[in-house]
Protein backbone atom coordinates (compact mmCIF):
# COMPACT_ATOMS: atom_id res chain seq x y z
CA UNK A 1 0.00 0.00 0.00
CA UNK A 2 2.53 2.49 0.95
CA UNK A 3 4.94 4.56 -0.95
CA UNK A 4 8.08 4.41 1.09
CA UNK A 5 7.13 2.42 4.14
CA UNK A 6 10.05 3.91 6.00
CA UNK A 7 8.98 7.45 5.25
CA UNK A 8 5.80 6.86 7.18
CA UNK A 9 7.61 5.05 9.96
CA UNK A 10 9.87 8.05 10.45
CA UNK A 11 7.08 10.55 10.01
CA UNK A 12 4.81 8.76 12.48
CA UNK A 13 7.57 8.38 15.04
CA UNK A 14 8.43 12.05 14.81
CA UNK A 15 4.80 13.09 15.09
CA UNK A 16 4.18 10.77 18.04
CA UNK A 17 7.30 12.07 19.75
CA UNK A 18 6.33 15.68 19.15
CA UNK A 19 2.79 15.19 20.46
CA UNK A 20 4.01 13.28 23.51
CA UNK A 21 6.67 15.88 24.25
CA UNK A 22 4.25 18.79 23.86
CA UNK A 23 1.66 17.25 26.15
CA UNK A 24 4.29 16.13 28.61
CA UNK A 25 5.74 19.62 28.85
CA UNK A 26 2.36 21.33 29.17
CA UNK A 27 1.11 18.87 31.76
CA UNK A 28 4.17 18.81 33.96
CA UNK A 29 5.15 22.48 33.91
CA UNK A 30 1.61 23.50 34.74
CA UNK A 31 1.49 21.04 37.60
CA UNK A 32 4.87 22.12 38.91
CA UNK A 33 4.12 25.82 38.69
CA UNK A 34 0.76 25.75 40.37
CA UNK A 35 0.97 26.94 43.92
CA UNK A 36 0.51 23.48 45.31
CA UNK A 37 -2.33 24.35 47.63
CA UNK A 38 -4.99 22.61 45.63
CA UNK A 39 -2.92 19.66 44.72
CA UNK A 40 -2.43 19.08 48.43
CA UNK A 41 -6.12 19.52 49.08
CA UNK A 42 -6.98 16.25 47.42
CA UNK A 43 -4.85 14.40 49.90
CA UNK A 44 -5.85 16.64 52.77
CA UNK A 45 -8.45 14.43 54.28
CA UNK A 46 -5.97 11.56 54.37
CA UNK A 47 -3.42 13.82 56.01
CA UNK A 48 -6.00 15.19 58.43
CA UNK A 49 -7.14 11.73 59.45
CA UNK A 50 -3.59 10.62 60.04
CA UNK A 51 -2.63 13.71 62.01
CA UNK A 52 -5.78 13.53 64.10
CA UNK A 53 -5.12 9.86 64.77
CA UNK A 54 -1.64 10.75 65.97
CA UNK A 55 -3.05 13.41 68.23
CA UNK A 56 -1.12 16.14 66.47
CA UNK A 57 -4.10 18.21 65.45
CA UNK A 58 -7.31 19.01 67.27
CA UNK A 59 -10.39 17.08 66.24
CA UNK A 60 -12.77 19.01 64.02
CA UNK A 61 -15.58 18.81 66.57
CA UNK A 62 -13.51 20.61 69.17
CA UNK A 63 -12.37 23.27 66.70
CA UNK A 64 -15.96 23.89 65.65
CA UNK A 65 -16.93 24.51 69.27
CA UNK A 66 -14.07 26.99 69.59
CA UNK A 67 -15.03 28.68 66.33
CA UNK A 68 -18.59 29.16 67.51
CA UNK A 69 -17.14 30.86 70.57
CA UNK A 70 -15.57 33.44 68.27
CA UNK A 71 -18.55 33.86 66.02
CA UNK A 72 -22.12 32.84 66.80
CA UNK A 73 -24.10 31.30 63.98
CA UNK A 74 -24.45 28.17 61.90
CA UNK A 75 -21.43 26.39 60.46
CA UNK A 76 -21.60 26.32 56.66
CA UNK A 77 -18.37 24.64 55.76
CA UNK A 78 -15.22 23.37 57.39
CA UNK A 79 -12.04 22.59 55.55
CA UNK A 80 -8.66 21.31 56.61
CA UNK A 81 -5.65 22.73 54.86
CA UNK A 82 -1.95 22.59 54.94
CA UNK A 83 -0.52 25.98 54.14
CA UNK A 84 3.26 26.40 54.06
CA UNK A 85 3.70 23.61 56.54
CA UNK A 86 0.99 24.99 58.83
CA UNK A 87 -2.15 23.03 59.57
CA UNK A 88 -5.25 25.13 59.42
CA UNK A 89 -8.97 24.65 59.75
CA UNK A 90 -10.93 27.01 57.58
CA UNK A 91 -14.45 27.41 58.88
CA UNK A 92 -17.34 29.33 57.40
CA UNK A 93 -20.10 30.47 59.72
CA UNK A 94 -23.24 32.34 58.76
CA UNK A 95 -24.61 34.68 61.46
CA UNK A 96 -28.27 35.46 62.13
CA UNK A 97 -28.16 38.37 59.68
CA UNK A 98 -27.01 36.08 56.90
CA UNK A 99 -23.45 37.40 56.90
CA UNK A 100 -20.85 34.74 56.13
CA UNK A 101 -17.71 34.79 58.27
CA UNK A 102 -14.55 32.97 57.38
CA UNK A 103 -12.43 31.87 60.30
CA UNK A 104 -8.99 30.34 60.09
CA UNK A 105 -7.92 28.39 63.10
CA UNK A 106 -4.62 26.79 63.89
CA UNK A 107 -5.27 23.06 63.79
CA UNK A 108 -2.64 22.32 66.40
CA UNK A 109 -3.84 24.57 69.24
CA UNK A 110 -7.05 26.17 68.04
CA UNK A 111 -5.72 29.75 67.91
CA UNK A 112 -7.83 32.07 65.80
CA UNK A 113 -5.57 33.19 62.97
CA UNK A 114 -7.94 35.18 60.84
CA UNK A 115 -11.55 36.25 60.87
CA UNK A 116 -13.09 38.04 57.97
CA UNK A 117 -16.26 38.37 56.02
Amino acid at each position, binding site marked *: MMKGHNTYLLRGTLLAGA*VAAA*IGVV*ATTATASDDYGDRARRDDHHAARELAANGRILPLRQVLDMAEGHQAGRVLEAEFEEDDGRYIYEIEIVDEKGMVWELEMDALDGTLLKKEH
Partner: protein
Amino acid sequence: MNTIKVWDPFVRIGHWLLVGGFLVAYLSGDEWMDIHVWAGYLVFGVVVFRIMWGAIGPRPAQFRSFVQPFSAVKRHMSDLLRLRPRAYAGHNPAGGWMVVALLATLLLVALSGIATLGTEGEGPLAGTAIAAFLGEEGWEEVHEILTNLALVLVAVHIGGVVMESIFTHENLPKSMVTGIKHIHTEEKS
Protein backbone atom coordinates in the same frame (compact mmCIF):
# COMPACT_ATOMS: atom_id res chain seq x y z
CA MET B 1 -7.82 -14.77 -1.46
CA ASN B 2 -5.37 -11.92 -1.14
CA THR B 3 -4.23 -10.12 1.91
CA ILE B 4 -3.66 -6.41 2.13
CA LYS B 5 -1.96 -4.41 4.79
CA VAL B 6 -4.48 -1.73 5.67
CA TRP B 7 -3.59 -0.43 9.10
CA ASP B 8 -0.15 1.00 9.71
CA PRO B 9 1.49 0.42 13.11
CA PHE B 10 0.60 3.90 14.38
CA VAL B 11 -3.10 3.42 13.73
CA ARG B 12 -3.03 0.03 15.45
CA ILE B 13 -0.94 1.00 18.47
CA GLY B 14 -2.94 4.20 18.78
CA HIS B 15 -6.20 2.28 18.69
CA TRP B 16 -5.23 -0.05 21.52
CA LEU B 17 -3.63 2.73 23.56
CA LEU B 18 -6.98 4.50 23.31
CA VAL B 19 -8.80 1.39 24.46
CA GLY B 20 -6.44 0.96 27.41
CA GLY B 21 -6.26 4.65 28.25
CA PHE B 22 -10.01 5.13 28.16
CA LEU B 23 -10.61 2.01 30.23
CA VAL B 24 -8.07 2.98 32.87
CA ALA B 25 -9.33 6.57 32.96
CA TYR B 26 -12.92 5.38 33.26
CA LEU B 27 -12.21 2.91 36.04
CA SER B 28 -9.90 5.20 38.02
CA GLY B 29 -12.53 7.95 37.66
CA ASP B 30 -13.20 9.45 41.06
CA GLU B 31 -10.93 7.21 43.05
CA TRP B 32 -7.45 7.57 41.75
CA MET B 33 -6.89 11.05 40.46
CA ASP B 34 -3.22 10.83 39.51
CA ILE B 35 -3.74 7.75 37.38
CA HIS B 36 -6.97 9.17 35.96
CA VAL B 37 -5.23 12.35 34.87
CA TRP B 38 -2.32 10.55 33.21
CA ALA B 39 -4.60 8.12 31.42
CA GLY B 40 -6.56 11.15 30.27
CA TYR B 41 -3.44 12.83 28.91
CA LEU B 42 -2.60 9.58 27.13
CA VAL B 43 -6.02 9.52 25.47
CA PHE B 44 -5.66 13.21 24.61
CA GLY B 45 -2.25 12.61 23.06
CA VAL B 46 -3.37 9.65 20.98
CA VAL B 47 -6.42 11.54 19.72
CA VAL B 48 -4.34 14.59 18.77
CA PHE B 49 -1.83 12.31 17.06
CA ARG B 50 -4.57 10.43 15.20
CA ILE B 51 -6.18 13.62 13.94
CA MET B 52 -2.85 14.82 12.55
CA TRP B 53 -2.07 11.34 11.24
CA GLY B 54 -5.40 11.51 9.43
CA ALA B 55 -3.91 14.36 7.43
CA ILE B 56 -0.33 13.25 6.87
CA GLY B 57 -0.41 9.48 7.40
CA PRO B 58 -0.60 6.75 4.78
CA ARG B 59 -3.66 6.61 2.56
CA PRO B 60 -5.87 4.22 4.60
CA ALA B 61 -5.26 6.30 7.72
CA GLN B 62 -6.32 9.51 6.03
CA PHE B 63 -9.71 10.97 6.79
CA ARG B 64 -10.38 11.71 3.16
CA SER B 65 -10.02 8.02 2.33
CA PHE B 66 -12.71 6.88 4.75
CA VAL B 67 -14.99 9.81 5.48
CA GLN B 68 -17.63 9.37 2.85
CA PRO B 69 -20.80 11.29 2.02
CA PHE B 70 -23.93 10.39 3.92
CA SER B 71 -25.41 8.83 0.78
CA ALA B 72 -22.74 6.14 1.07
CA VAL B 73 -23.67 5.61 4.71
CA LYS B 74 -27.32 5.25 3.72
CA ARG B 75 -26.47 2.73 1.03
CA HIS B 76 -24.33 0.80 3.48
CA MET B 77 -27.17 0.76 6.00
CA SER B 78 -29.66 -0.53 3.48
CA ASP B 79 -27.14 -3.18 2.37
CA LEU B 80 -26.87 -4.12 6.00
CA LEU B 81 -30.64 -4.38 6.41
CA ARG B 82 -30.78 -6.72 3.45
CA LEU B 83 -27.98 -8.63 5.17
CA ARG B 84 -25.73 -8.12 2.18
CA PRO B 85 -23.07 -5.60 3.14
CA ARG B 86 -20.11 -5.32 0.84
CA ALA B 87 -16.58 -5.57 2.12
CA TYR B 88 -14.44 -2.49 2.27
CA ALA B 89 -10.67 -2.40 2.32
CA GLY B 90 -10.63 0.27 5.00
CA HIS B 91 -13.56 1.43 7.10
CA ASN B 92 -17.08 0.96 5.86
CA PRO B 93 -18.91 4.30 5.44
CA ALA B 94 -20.63 4.05 8.82
CA GLY B 95 -17.38 2.98 10.45
CA GLY B 96 -15.59 5.98 8.96
CA TRP B 97 -18.01 8.36 10.60
CA MET B 98 -17.74 6.41 13.83
CA VAL B 99 -14.00 7.11 13.83
CA VAL B 100 -14.73 10.81 13.45
CA ALA B 101 -17.42 10.74 16.16
CA LEU B 102 -15.22 8.82 18.60
CA LEU B 103 -12.18 11.04 18.05
CA ALA B 104 -14.24 14.22 18.38
CA THR B 105 -16.00 12.99 21.52
CA LEU B 106 -12.81 11.75 23.18
CA LEU B 107 -11.12 15.04 22.35
CA LEU B 108 -13.95 16.91 24.09
CA VAL B 109 -13.88 14.49 27.01
CA ALA B 110 -10.17 15.14 27.45
CA LEU B 111 -10.52 18.91 27.07
CA SER B 112 -13.38 19.09 29.57
CA GLY B 113 -11.29 16.95 31.90
CA ILE B 114 -8.38 19.38 31.58
CA ALA B 115 -10.82 22.24 32.26
CA THR B 116 -12.10 20.40 35.37
CA LEU B 117 -8.50 19.99 36.46
CA GLY B 118 -8.07 23.72 35.90
CA THR B 119 -10.90 24.50 38.32
CA GLU B 120 -8.95 22.60 40.95
CA GLY B 121 -5.93 24.77 40.29
CA GLU B 122 -4.05 22.15 38.33
CA GLY B 123 -2.99 21.51 34.77
CA PRO B 124 -2.51 23.93 31.90
CA LEU B 125 -5.89 25.62 32.39
CA ALA B 126 -5.40 26.36 36.11
CA GLY B 127 -6.57 29.83 36.96
CA THR B 128 -7.80 30.61 33.45
CA ALA B 129 -11.11 32.09 32.36
CA ILE B 130 -11.96 28.78 30.71
CA ALA B 131 -11.78 26.98 34.04
CA ALA B 132 -13.80 29.70 35.73
CA PHE B 133 -16.37 29.73 32.92
CA LEU B 134 -18.33 26.72 34.16
CA GLY B 135 -16.65 26.17 37.50
CA GLU B 136 -15.74 22.86 39.06
CA GLU B 137 -19.19 21.37 39.13
CA GLY B 138 -20.12 22.64 35.70
CA TRP B 139 -17.04 21.22 34.02
CA GLU B 140 -17.32 17.97 35.91
CA GLU B 141 -20.90 17.65 34.70
CA VAL B 142 -19.85 18.30 31.09
CA HIS B 143 -16.96 15.84 31.48
CA GLU B 144 -19.33 13.13 32.70
CA ILE B 145 -21.99 13.71 30.06
CA LEU B 146 -19.36 13.55 27.30
CA THR B 147 -17.90 10.41 28.86
CA ASN B 148 -21.32 8.78 28.78
CA LEU B 149 -21.66 9.78 25.15
CA ALA B 150 -18.25 8.20 24.47
CA LEU B 151 -19.41 5.01 26.20
CA VAL B 152 -22.49 4.86 23.97
CA LEU B 153 -20.33 5.39 20.89
CA VAL B 154 -17.90 2.68 22.04
CA ALA B 155 -20.82 0.28 22.47
CA VAL B 156 -22.17 1.07 18.98
CA HIS B 157 -18.63 0.83 17.56
CA ILE B 158 -18.12 -2.63 19.08
CA GLY B 159 -21.57 -3.68 17.89
CA GLY B 160 -20.77 -2.51 14.37
CA VAL B 161 -17.41 -4.26 14.37
CA VAL B 162 -18.97 -7.53 15.52
CA MET B 163 -21.69 -7.23 12.88
CA GLU B 164 -19.31 -6.50 10.06
CA SER B 165 -16.94 -9.23 11.22
CA ILE B 166 -19.77 -11.73 10.97
CA PHE B 167 -21.07 -10.53 7.62
CA THR B 168 -17.73 -10.23 5.90
CA HIS B 169 -16.07 -13.24 7.57
CA GLU B 170 -13.21 -10.99 8.53
CA ASN B 171 -12.01 -10.88 12.11
CA LEU B 172 -11.79 -7.10 12.39
CA PRO B 173 -10.42 -6.88 15.94
CA LYS B 174 -7.62 -9.16 14.74
CA SER B 175 -7.05 -6.87 11.75
CA MET B 176 -6.58 -4.04 14.19
CA VAL B 177 -3.76 -6.08 15.74
CA THR B 178 -2.06 -7.43 12.63
CA GLY B 179 -3.02 -4.64 10.27
CA ILE B 180 -4.00 -7.21 7.65
CA LYS B 181 -7.32 -7.67 5.91
CA HIS B 182 -8.27 -10.38 3.46
CA ILE B 183 -9.85 -9.79 0.11
CA HIS B 184 -12.59 -12.33 -0.33
CA THR B 185 -13.46 -13.23 -3.87
CA GLU B 186 -17.20 -13.27 -3.15
CA GLU B 187 -16.96 -9.62 -2.35
CA LYS B 188 -18.01 -8.61 -5.82
CA SER B 189 -21.67 -9.41 -6.10
